[in-house]
């Protein structure tokens, strides 16, 4: 099998143009692999056809875990392991435990969600990025077409990209 991947890289310099270009290029039957942008563009991921992220579900589950852990810890320490008599009041003092339970929930949600974010995007400290164009973190919007997954010829796709407003079309191999 051929180990090198060949990409056509369309360079755009306006966020609205790249958003329209995605629909246009897709409409002409070209499979877009990804678009790299210097800042988030709303609706770009759905235009490309990426499925909706499930990170909010993960966040909720982490929050639930945090809540459960906090309640478990407090109940275990305050009611079962070492109950303290404070004015003869009930050991199970739920209203007093709301602050710590809340903080635990927030802590687990935040860390769990951000950890999930790193894992799902496979980002880790020191990872070498797969860079198509260095300007994609500055001011250019980069559309990548994997030639391995497209049937159309290079010249055809280049024509389509140019017509959709790309200022440059480059070839990149990994």
């Amino acid at each position, binding site marked *: 099998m051929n180990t090198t991947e060949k990409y056509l890289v369309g360079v755009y*310099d306006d*966020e*609205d*143009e790249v958003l329209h270009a995605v629909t246009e290029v897709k409409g002409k039957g070209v499979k877009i692999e*990804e*678009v*790299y*942008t*210097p*800042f*988030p*563009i*709303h609706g*770009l*991921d759905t235009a*490309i056809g*990426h499925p909706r*992220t499930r*990170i*909010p579900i993960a966040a909720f589950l982490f929050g639930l875990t945090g809540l459960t852990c906090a309640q478990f*810890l*407090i109940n275990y*320490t*305050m009611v079962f392991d*070492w109950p303290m008599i*404070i004015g003869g009041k009930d050991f199970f*003092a739920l209203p007093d*435990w709301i*602050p710590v339970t*809340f*903080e*635990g929930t*927030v802590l687990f*949600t*935040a*860390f769990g*969600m*951000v950890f999930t*974010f790193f894992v*799902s*995007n*496979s*980002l*880790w*400290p*020191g*990872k070498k*990025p797969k*860079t198509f164009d260095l*300007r*994609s*973190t*500055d*001011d250019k919007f980069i559309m990548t077409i994997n030639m391995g997954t497209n049937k159309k010829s290079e010249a055809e796709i280049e024509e389509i990209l*140019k*017509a*959709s*407003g*790309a*200022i440059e079309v480059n070839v990149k191999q990994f």
Partner: protein
Amino acid sequence: MSHVVSPIRETLVGGGRSYHDVTQDICKQVEGEPTKEWKIAFSVSCVIFAYGAYCLGYTWWQGIGVWGLNKTVGWAWDITNFVWWVGIGHAGTLISAVLLLFRQKWRTSINRAAEAMTIFAVLCAASFILAHMGRPWLAHWALPLPNTFGSLWVNFNSPLVWDVFAISTYLSVSLVFWYLGLIPDLATIRDRAQTKASKFWYGLFSVGWTGSAKTWARYEYVSLILAGISTPLVLSVHTIVSMDFATSVIPGWHTTIFPPYFVAGAIFSGFAMVQTLLLVTRVVFKLEDYITMEHIEMMNIIITVTGSVVGIAYLTEFFIAWYSGVEYESYCFINRAFGPYWWAYWMMMTCNVISPQLFWFKSIRTNILISFILSVVVNVGMWFERFVIIVSSLHRDYIPSSWAMFSPTMYDIGDYIFSFGLFFTLFFLFAKFLPVINMAEVKSVMKGVSSNYPFKKKSEGGKESVTH
């Protein structure tokens, strides 16, 4: 993204800048050699830090007997400074979380610095928590760790334990929020890096960020949820700090108004500190087109609103002390205003209630020098607020024979100086090595709001012409 924006809105980024100009302007500080001003400022803050570290080291070594505390006034500058710093540490998350939820786009050019300031302020606050324990090496006793005493656990019914959880959660979640926002900008610096060292370090911390649409989509969700959970978090933190006082039985402390009153005060002083720092930063780093008069005015308006809330809280407290008919309570408040600490009380009243009202005048709230002076005045006032609440409630206790005054020693003052040294040293390091403005977020609001962004219109044949 192009949004529908009212044409009467001021542009968020001035000077008709393009995206590349933004990158250039913000990365300049990070990539270039440190300026002479930066070197001088950093050296001065290091000297302050070193002197403070000596004082704090001596306090740790000798114990808190070196402070001016006595048997009547058992809490003074330590807790005053702690509450003051924690309050200041509220603005960053407020700006980045609450203003994100309210879709306030002007936050984008100030949130990075404000969040950094938040983290440093909370660290300063933590230094007083550790110091006031007396035996800071036993700080882990505040955590529910298994131990050889039973296991004897911490008391989850105690507001002081809530505070441990609140502050540590707040610090770590703010740090995560801040770092997450930094990643795209670190990647920008990485992709421009010329030297080996900056390629390595910015490469390490930018975690292989590429800015793919999929990553951005997830990133947007993560930011939104972090903002959603940080909003109640930031409110909970100062609420719980206020409960350290409010759940006690000391007249002047056990009032139900404390949580909202403290939260308003925290936002008030936090915004004032952000204002102070940004007014300097925008000049030193020539960011006048990013931190515009619009930003300064918005900040001043928030300062006026929260200052007024704080003012109403002061008056309500006074009224309720009288209306409750509790003589201890009434005495405490009369003593605050007219007793031996009258000067601290009126200092607080002048700085916090009267001076921010000057911002009702447009000429004052758009005057940079006056804004700077008043932002400092607000934080002087907020320091006195905490001092008044803490010391004036304690110094005349139930037995007149034990009435006392508090006078700080050089170590009280030195530990306070330490926190300034720590704060400014960290802030200058941040300003040199990290982008002070969130480039990605600023770029994302430029076209929607700035009418003078070089707008590109498509003409025939895929060629573009630039129109302004």
